[in-house]
Structures are given as structure tokens and as C-alpha cells.
């Protein structure tokens, strides 16, 4: 382009811009002016705001209309098969992904050294995750790993493969001491170290290294290892309330009232010691124990024994108490009755009880 033509072009462009500005300014100004005069005369002609169209009557609660966002949405009355299927382009292989360049003999522990969210580019596996409604959607297959949020949501264990564990255990082995030879089995451990203390340490990415939950201490012990007599054992169980689990015979004490773990551990030990000595001590009022106070049903001390002995006396004509108690039918009755009280009324227990009563009363059924 010659200089002259360039100059003229530039000139014209400036001119056009100027005229343009002037025009728009005038037009806009004039328009508003016209509009204002008109609107003053008949303001009703202004375009009214479109009202919302609802497809069913709005609900009313206490005189107020309930606003429902979905109500003005047209209901799709076509059946599912007739609807237009949304199609997404199938994802081809990610050409730029790292897994294309990975050698087959690479060391996975270097690729995924620590815990991290799922990265599709770094995982050379055709994993899929997600929900498909039916066979129409995505050919009935769960979505691929590319841009798949489901795979990021779930925790993965790609940092804890067997080679990882082998490598890391090898690295920290130098800090480990040998296991005591005397403790070969679990029973040995339980015998020699009956108390089990569980604490948790919390590590996460945050401004503080402290965590309140780390103070909680859980102490567990099997009651059998305390070598208590029956009365003390019962007393301890009563004192412990729901802290004792009869199924496993374990006493569990959880302490968290002190601010530090060590203080809570000391407190748990103190609780156990107090419980132990308190249950060993026999108070005067403990002799006044009645059938209702007992933890389990004991036939020997119950009224049932008296009644049965009376019955036996009438049927078998045996006066001696010990002889009557040692009778076979009495023993089975005793067992079955205790079962009903201690274990609950199950079908088998009731049946067995019925049989033992029939035997006892010598009633023969057809």
C-alpha cells in the first residue's frame, strides 16, 4: 500500500469513527427523549414482564403459595424408548497421556510413590467406574477412566502394591528389633500381656499438628486373666455395666476426659485398679442379695427348687433332698429352666423345657 493511500485510509477511518460516535449519541439521546414523552402519555403500553406459566396449581400452605422450581418444567410424556438419545463422542485414547510412553518393565513404586488421587494419565490400566442406567447408555458399560470423577472420589491403593510394601518394609527394617522368642503364639501374648491399650494418631495436611481425638485411650482386658472368685467377678461385671462384653469376656475402658494421652492412659489404669480392688472387697450388705439382684438365674437359690422338691416328694416319695436333686429328670429340668432364664425363650429351649416337665411329672403323650 502506498503512503498516500494509507494516509487517506487512516483519515477516512477517523472520520467514520467520529460520525459513528455522533450518530449513536444522537440516536440514543433522541430515542430516550421520544420514549420519555410517549411513556408519560400512556405508560400502560410498556412491555410487561412475562409471567411465569405453571403447569399445575401451586400448593398453598397457610395462605402462602409454595414456589416449586420444577413445576414450570414441561413433563416429558414420551416413554423412555421414544426420547431422543443424547450422544457423546466416544473418548479415544489420550494421545498425550503418560501411559503411552511407559516401558513395560518400569518400577511402579517410582511412578506412584505416595498416596494421591487417581490420575488417569499415569495409570496404564483400562479401569472403568460409574453407573449406567441400562444397555442403551454407553453400550451398557461403565464409563472409561478419562475425565471420570467417580475414580477420583474413591480412595485408591495404587501406592500400597506388594512391591511398595516390600520396598518400604526393607527400608525401615533397620529400626525394628527382633520379636521376643518366648512369645510364639497369640495365647502366649495374651497370657503374659493381658492388657491391650489402643490409641490413634492423626496425621493430615493442615496448619496444626495437634488433634483432639489423639487423646482417647482404649484399655481392654479379659476378665478371666484377673483370677477373681465368682462373687468378685459378678461384682466387677455389675460395676462395669455396659463396659463388659459377656460374649468375649472382655472389659473395655475408654478414657478421654484428660487433655493428653498419657494422662488418659494413667486414668484408665487407675480405673482398672479401683474396679479390681472394689470388687474384691466384700461389704456386709452383699449377703442380703436376693434372686432379683442376681446377674443370672441360679436354680439352687431359687424358689423353683423348693417347688420341685415338693412335687418330687409327692410323685417319687423321696424324702432326702440331695437324692432328689441328683435325679436325672430333676437335673435336666434344672438345666432347661436355667437356659430359658439365662438365654431367653427360644423354640428349642421351650421344647426342651416342655419335655423335661413332662418327664418330671411322668405324663406320657400320644
Amino acid at each position: 500500500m502506498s503512503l498516500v493511500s494509507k494516509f487517506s485510509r487512516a483519515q477516512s477511518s477517523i472520520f467514520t469513527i467520529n460520525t459513528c460516535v455522533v450518530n449513536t449519541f444522537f440516536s440514543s439521546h433522541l430515542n430516550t427523549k421520544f420514549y420519555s414523552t410517549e411513556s408519560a402519555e400512556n405508560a400502560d403500553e410498556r412491555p410487561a414482564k412475562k409471567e411465569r406459566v405453571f403447569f399445575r396449581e401451586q400448593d398453598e400452605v397457610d395462605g402462602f403459595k409454595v414456589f416449586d422450581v420444577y413445576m414450570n418444567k414441561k413433563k416429558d410424556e414420551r416413554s423412555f424408548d421414544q426420547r431422543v438419545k443424547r450422544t457423546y463422542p466416544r473418548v479415544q485414547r489420550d494421545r498425550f497421556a503418560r501411559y503411552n510412553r511407559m516401558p513395560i518393565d518400569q518400577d511402579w513404586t517410582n511412578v506412584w510413590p505416595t498416596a494421591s488421587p487417581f490420575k488417569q494419565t499415569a495409570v496404564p490400566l483400562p479401569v472403568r467406574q460409574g453407573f449406567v442406567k441400562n444397555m442403551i447408555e454407553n453400550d451398557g458399560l461403565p464409563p472409561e477412566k478419562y475425565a471420570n470423577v467417580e475414580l477420583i472420589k474413591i480412595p485408591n491403593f495404587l501406592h500400597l502394591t506388594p512391591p511398595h510394601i516390600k520396598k518400604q518394609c526393607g527400608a525401615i527394617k533397620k529400626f525394628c528389633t527382633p520379636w521376643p522368642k518366648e512369645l510364639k503364639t497369640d495365647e502366649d501374648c495374651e497370657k503374659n500381656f493381658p492388657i491391650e491399650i489402643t490409641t490413634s494418631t492423626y496425621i493430615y495436611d493442615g496448619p496444626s499438628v495437634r488433634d483432639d481425638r489423639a487423646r482417647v485411650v482404649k484399655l481392654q482386658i479379659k476378665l478371666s486373666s484377673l483370677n477373681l472368685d465368682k462373687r468378685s467377678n459378678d461384682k466387677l461385671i455389675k460395676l462395669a455395666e455396659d463396659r463388659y462384653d459377656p460374649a468375649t469376656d472382655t472389659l473395655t475402658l475408654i478414657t478421654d476426659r484428660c487433655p493428653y494421652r498419657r494422662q488418659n492412659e494413667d486414668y484408665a489404669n487407675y480405673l482398672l485398679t479401683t474396679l479390681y480392688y472394689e470388687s474384691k472387697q466384700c461389704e456386709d450388705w452383699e449377703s442380703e442379695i436376693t434372686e432379683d439382684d442376681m446377674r443370672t438365674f441360679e436354680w439352687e437359690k431359687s424358689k423353683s427348687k423348693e417347688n420341685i422338691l415338693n412335687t418330687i416328694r409327692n410323685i417319687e416319695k423321696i424324702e432326702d433332698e440331695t437324692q432328689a436333686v441328683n435325679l436325672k429328670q430333676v437335673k435336666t429340668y434344672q438345666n432347661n429352666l436355667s437356659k430359658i432364664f439365662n438365654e431367653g425363650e427360644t423354640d428349642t429351649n421351650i421344647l426342651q423345657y416342655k419335655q423335661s416337665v413332662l418327664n418330671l411329672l411322668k405324663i406320657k403323650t400320644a
Partner: protein
Amino acid sequence: MSNLSSSVKKAISIPYRIKRSPTDLLKALSNTVKLDPNTPHYSLIDDSLLTSINPNDVRRSYLSKASGIKAAKFMIEKYPEAFMKDDCVPHVKSFFPKYEFSEEELKYPTENLIYSLMSWGKLSLAYDSYLKCKDQNIEVSEECKHVLLDLLSINNSNDSKEKVPIMEEWYLKGQTRDMESKPRYIPANTWVKGGKAEQMFNELKSKSAASYCSLIKGMTKYNDAENATTLYNEMKHYNLTPDLNTINSMIKIISLSPPEVTNDKKIEIMLQRLNEIKNYGMLPNLKTFNTCFELIKSFNLFQRSVPLTLDLFKEMQNLKIEPSLSTYSHIVSIFYPNRDIGVRTGVLGQVINEIEKMAQSENGLVWKDVDDPLFFKIAMEKLSLGTPENLPLAKKLNGILFKENNIKFLNDSYLINKYFEFYLTTLIKFDLPENVIDEWRFLTPYIYGRSIIILDRMIDFVSKNKCFDFVPELWSNCLEFKSKRLSDFWSDTIESLLNIMGQYEEDNQELISKYSSIAEIMIKNYPYAPLRIETDSEDDLQPLEYNWNSKMLSNLFIVLLRGNKLEAAWNEFENYMKNQNKIAGELSEKSILNLCEALIGANRIDNAFEVLKLAVSLQLPILKGLISKLRESNLSSEQHTLLKQLKNKLSL
């Protein structure tokens, strides 16, 4: 509680726990993680399309992160009240706004105030408070004055500097290292003369050796050789004993003496300082020897350098001081002062063997001196200058670098770029193509971002060795560089790549189709005659013109036609006919012949005649063959007569 159980029979021997520091476990675990050449740095990991590959992108990404940190710090300083909530256990000082001393607090100066000002790095204010104390006759202990002098000397009479974000430091350090590595670099004297440090020194009632030493070390740090020497002599005059570090720094500044001081004189001063160490009853340390070697290195070509170095090294062995990496880096520089000298001595081989022994020892390579990172770069630089015998040595050195976590020694952008540049240059010079390509794939782009120099060398190497399979990959490497505006680079690259592709004569269809699509991209994206869009504004980026010549175009036609892209080739031929003035030289015979044959094959006789016209104007010897081929095809009567006339002309 265990004694409660009745069944304890044997005593159980539980071993004592092995003592370890709080970080020992973490260190052991981190040692299990080795470098994965396929993974970008963790801070760059992103979606595969967005991960930065080329060095410019990486630099931009790191520096923008650093500027983000700076912006955050700025906001913290601007609105300190919003950032006062302290959830941190333990408290991290740098996460919180700096403490601002109010005027009220500064009104009543005390020694405690001076200490707290110093702990917040406000040294100027601390000095002012000290002066106020002096005016108001408030007593300040000598110890406090010493600490203030120490800090002022270290910081050159300024407030202590803020730390730069680690990503920025990587490039900043690289920049200074680049500047320092240039020949004839003389560090400038930046010491503030008569500044607060010197004033503080004059304030001291009794000037102890320690106060002298602090000031001297400050002066030597900021390269004030003259004043430091005067002060050192004054110190000696008062019979005060300097500490070892001061003498070390005095040796360091000998190299800054004025140009009239000869090298012999410098050596004399150095020996004098060493004798002083002996006279004061001290033993020299590693730093002493390293500074001596550094001084000898600065002589460049000098007769006495080598024997003196050997003497000093022997002395070091006698004192049982283990040399560090920097010792060896200085020795290598002394033995190989330039391109030609030192190649035959074989010192590099010995040094690398020593380093290998160090690396294989129990502790591995240990960081002992500030200049340790220089070793790998200097050794590789000297290896790249040498003979092919250096190749195994270079590989050995690289093996040591990749062992354990030794790559930490390349601790800034300059060192890592230079080291790998020299390493790849050595390989390109001396090694077989398959090894070079393997190493290229291993190192780039994640361990070492390809620089334009090394990319250029690689293209040269590939074209010399005719590595046909590697061309597509190399082309994509070039594209990853994303530097469309470097027109010279692209013109050269396109020329050499087209040259190789044009030479390919085997029959691998996959490769041929790849070549033709590359050629298509080349002419489309890097044109010699771009379509100019005329806009009113002058600022718009106009498309660049890339330099093409006739040889490149001929190769382009050959490659396109081999890949059966006749349409593209024809379009380009038409374009060429329009812009013939932009292309120097003439198209080759082979390309014209190929194009003509392809057009005849596709039964595009009119187009073939156009090509024939060009051949006639160039008076090519293949003309006769072309005419006879054209005559075999279906021609109109006009075309027949034209051909006849042509043939007659030729026969004449």
C-alpha cells in the same frame, strides 16, 4: 498389671528400642523413591494436555506460582488484622504478618526493644534505637552491641532481606550463577562505606577480636578487599587473633587485588596467610583449601598453578582432610584451563574414579561446601571438549549423578540446563545413534527441558546419521517447543528435516505417510509467502515469513508425492509459480519429474503442461523424456501441436 496373671513362667526378654531421630523413618522411606523419567515434577502434574513440557512454559508456571505467593504475602502485610488467628501448632512465624512497631513503642528505647527489633530483622531501626539509648544515657550491654554489629555486617548495613519463594530462587540463583561463570567476571564491590556497620564498630568501647572478625567477614562478603585488608592489618597490629573463617575469607579476596598485583605476588600473600594459620596454632579446614584452590583457579593460565595445586592437595591428605566435590571441581578447572590444555593429563578420569568411590561409600556424596554443585557441570563441560575416549567417563559421571539422590547437587536452573546440555553434546559427538536417542527419550522433557541449542544439535545429528525412524518424534519435539516466532530456527529445522525425509527410499508405508503429513504441516504453518490480512491497526501481529529455498521446496514435492498427496503438491506448485521471486534457486529435476509423472498418472494433462512449461524455461535435460511420456497420454490437438513445436525446438 501383667504380674496379676498366675501363669507367668519364663522371663520375657524384650529388646531395647533402636534410637532414631524424628525424621529418620521419613528419610528411610524417601530413599525408596527413585527418579521416574516419565513423570513431570509434582508441581507441574496436570491434565496431560496442560502439563508444561517446554522450558519456557515451565518457567512461566513456576514464576507465576512464586508471584502468587508474593501477592498473598502482600495482602497479609496490607491487612494484618485479618490474618491474626493462630491455629498453627507449632506456630509458624512466616505464615503471619510481620510485627509493626508503633511509634509509642519506639519512643522509649531499651535493650529489650533493640533485641526484639533485631529478631524481626529491622536492623536500621535497631541501630536508631541504640543511638537514642546513647542520647538518653540508657545502658546497653556490650553483648547486645556485638550482636547488632554482627547482623549489620552480614546484611551490609541494611535490614535483613526477605526470603524469595523457592521456585523463584531456582531461576534467580541460576541467573547469578550464569553471570559468575562468564570469563573475566569480577564481582563488584557493594560494601556500604561508612555505613551503619562501620559506625557501630566505632561505637564499641573495647574492640575485641570477634568484633574485628565480624566486620572483616562482612567486608569480604561484599567484596571490599581494600578496607578488609587494612582492618586485618590493624587487627594484627593490636596483637588480636583472628578466627579461621576470617583468614579463609581473607584468602578469598586475594583474587580481587588490583591488576598490577602479579600472580606470583598473590601466591606469596596466600602462603603468608597459611603461615599465619600455622603461627596462631590453628589447623586449616576444608574451606581453607577450597578457597586456596579457587584462588589458583582464578589465575587461569599460569605456570605455577599445577605444581602448587599438587602440593596443596598433598598437604590436605597429610592433614587427613577429606576433599569435597568443590575441591575436585576447582582441581579440574585448574588442570583444564581451556579447550586444548589438560586433555592428555587424564586427571578427569582419576577425579571421576575418586568421586565414584565417594558415592559408593556408606554416606554417599555429602554436601560439604557451598560450591559443591559446580562439580558435575564443570566436569561434564571439560569432558564434552575432549576426545571420544571421554565417552565412558561421561557415562560414568552421569551414572553417579543418577545414583541415590545425587541429582540434588544440580540445585539451580543454570546448572541443570548446562549439565545436560554438555552431557547430550558429548553423546551426540561420540556415541552411536541408538544410544543417543535412548538417552534423549530418557532425559527429555521431564528431567531436562530441551533447550533450542540442544534441539538444533540433535536435528543435525539425526540428519547426519540418517535416523529415519526418529524424524517424526523429533518433529513433535520441535512443535512442543512452541516457538513459532523464531523464524531462523524453523527455517533451518525445516530444511534439515525435509532433507532427511527426501532421502528416504525404503518402503515403509507408515513412515512415508507420516512424512507427507509432516511436510503438509510444514508448508501450511511455516509459509514463505503467508496470506496477509490487511487491517487498519498497525499493532496486529502479522504472520511471519519463513525462509524457504528451492532445495527445500524440491524436497517438499518429493515427500508429498511419495505420500500420494498430489492435490497438496499441486497447490504448492501453483503457489510457487506465483511467488517465484521469493525463492532463491531452481527446483530440482527429480521433483519436477515426479510431479509431472504424478499429474500424468492422475490424467491431469493441463496441469502437467504447466509443469512442462517450467521445465522448458529451466531447460532441464529431462525434457525429452517428459515430452515422450506426455505423448503417450490422451492429448487434445492443440496440445499435440505444442508438443511437436517443442520437440522441433529441442532437436534444433
